[in-house]
């Protein structure tokens, strides 16, 4: 089971690197925030893996917190992007 969780972690790490690359390169601001969305999704996946590996349910709380912050950040950024284009 430990090997299985390690393999899952490696797969998620690859996904994390790909999304991070899009965040670094991303030609527009929107691309970077889409990559941030993707990064938080992967982070919740990591929280789930850690919860299974350690047997502590508290890591699922961490996943909930990350999801909450992600939603607020996405909503705030969407409003910011719309206002920014209208004011110019």
């Amino acid at each position, binding site marked *: 089971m430990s090997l299985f969780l390690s393999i899952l972690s490696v*797969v998620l790490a690859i996904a994390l690197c790909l999304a991070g690359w899009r965040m670094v390169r991303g030609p527009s*601001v929107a691309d970077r925030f889409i990559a941030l969305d993707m990064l938080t999704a992967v982070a919740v996946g990591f929280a*789930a893996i850690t919860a299974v590996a350690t047997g502590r349910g508290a890591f699922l709380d961490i996943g909930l917190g990350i999801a909450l912050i992600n939603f607020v950040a996405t909503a705030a950024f*969407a409003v910011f992007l719309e206002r920014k284009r209208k004011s110019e």
Partner: protein
Amino acid sequence: MTIFAMLLMALGAAFLLVAAIGVIRLPDPLQRLHSAAKAGTMGTALMLIGAILSGTVDASAKGLLTLVFLLLTLPLGAQLMGRATYISGTALKGIKDDPLDQLLDRTQDPGTR
């Protein structure tokens, strides 16, 4: 940890990997959003269900709460992001006629985007 839970977690990780590949490979921001929103939601949901069903975690209520919250907010956030991306005048690749052309006041010149 049951085989079923392992299968769900592996499937979820595969979905997340596919979503990340889509974020890298697809040509314009709206298509990248499409990949990140749908496949990303599916992947995280499957991983959380796998963690709940694994039997090693004694917090299925918290896991279910996280799952419901994710399923409610990720599509909502993707919708907000898609709207903002469209209004900010991003380049649309592979679309000949734009059905939303007259409906939203879209910035015509992307500029710095």
